[in-house]
């Protein structure tokens, strides 16, 4: 069965390592913070100027001066630090963040990603996403494998305006965990109960399938 939003977050959380500085995008990536494995500490970077983001506040803690990149009220973890936007993106662009998790509309076999604009529909803007994909070495894209109409989002070539070129190496969809290298998708894991055939059917770009494709351990 396709992974739920929570299960996607759980699987991403398995990639966390102790001492990682992590930037989590809006949406599913944000949920990853709820599933950090025991014995592992990570520090969350929020690109509006906070390293060491804590949980959402309770009613008494709400502070209009303390928000995350999604404009939600948040708190600070112990040892947090605040800074300006230039410093925040120096950190991001300079490759100091260990892991970035973000959503996308499309990715392709060359590691291109499209995530900020659907021409003709509303243009929301790229926010910090272009800097994040350009600056990070270690990125996990989380997305649904295909649209509701069964159109693949894992393509030979992205059709939408790009957020970044050749920068994505790992994609976790609701159906599969996929690595991108040498101009191809490589199937690493499948969602529990999802068949390799279904993944192949819903993947437009060239997909390399090993003999044995393990089920994810959620």
């Amino acid at each position, binding site marked *: 069965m396709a992974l739920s939003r929570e299960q996607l977050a759980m699987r991403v959380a398995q990639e966390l390592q102790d001492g990682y500085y992590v930037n989590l995008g809006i949406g599913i990536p944000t949920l990853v913070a709820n599933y950090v494995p025991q014995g592992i500490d990570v520090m969350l970077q*929020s*690109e*509006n*100027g*906070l390293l060491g983001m804590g*949980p*959402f*506040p*309770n*009613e008494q803690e*709400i*502070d*209009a*001066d*303390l*928000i*995350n990149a*999604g*404009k*939600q*009220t*948040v708190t*600070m973890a112990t040892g947090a630090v*605040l*800074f*300006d*936007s*230039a410093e*925040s*993106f120096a950190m*991001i*662009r300079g490759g100091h963040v260990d892991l970035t998790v973000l959503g996308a509309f499309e990715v392709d076999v060359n590691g*291109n990603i499209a995530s900020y*604009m659907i021409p003709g529909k*509303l*243009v*929301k*803007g*790229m*926010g*910090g*996403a*272009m*800097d994040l994909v*350009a*600056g990070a070495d270690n990125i996990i894209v989380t997305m649904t494998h295909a649209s509701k109409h069964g159109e693949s989002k894992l393509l030979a070539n992205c059709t939408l*305006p*790009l*957020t*970044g*070129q*050749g920068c994505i190496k790992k994609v976790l969809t609701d159906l599969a965990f996929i690595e991108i290298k040498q101009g191809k998708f490589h199937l690493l894991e499948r969602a529990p109960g999802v068949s390799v055939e279904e993944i192949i059917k819903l993947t437009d770009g060239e997909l390399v399938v090993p003999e044995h494709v393990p089920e994810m351990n959620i």
Partner: protein
Amino acid sequence: MSGFNKVVNSYQEAMAGLSDDMTVIAGGFGLCGIPEGLIAEIRHKQTKGLTVVSNNCGVDNFGLGLLLIDKQIKKMVSSYVGENALFEKQLLSGELEVELTPQGTLAEKMRAGGAGIPAFYTATGYGTPVGEGKEVREFNGRKYIMEEAIQGDFAIVKAWKADTFGNLVYRKTARNFNPMAATAGKITVVEVEEIVQPGELDPDAIHTPGIYVDRLIKGSFEKVIEQRTVRQA
């Protein structure tokens, strides 16, 4: 030190000299850390044809969104414009021009504008619509695009505390783009919650030195929250 006293006593004085078709650089991220009274004054002045450089354009009826009501803004330079219906409407109708700029590039362009750096290279946006028409250059085998600095006729900034010399301290994530904006205005106007005497701020903990600040006014702030999010008790 009268020559260094930046305090002005009215919003009119704070924004004196702002005229049609000028460029205004504004601090703030969403509605967090925005110079509410200075924005209100611009609306009150009804200055038109403005180019506004700011990460966002507020929301309908608050923040920079107020300047959309009477179509005072000709062009926005922003990274994110979502969640503002009036903005969308003026954009789609062609009344409002938008130069979408990645958030980190925008922050760096403001900093460069204040720091005498006319241009810099970044990998951000290479191979995307943002890179179109921009010079591409390779360093150590990777491709980068050239981005130019931004300066404003005015910068409008929100800080927490200031001393009368214009030394500024920001609070929490209300800092965001404000320090860079402060450096990039020909005239930099700052609205703060509290003004103290010189010597009362810790010199090691001042975020913006007063040399960048031309005018200072004490405001009162609504601090509207866009996404009020609480955890389960």
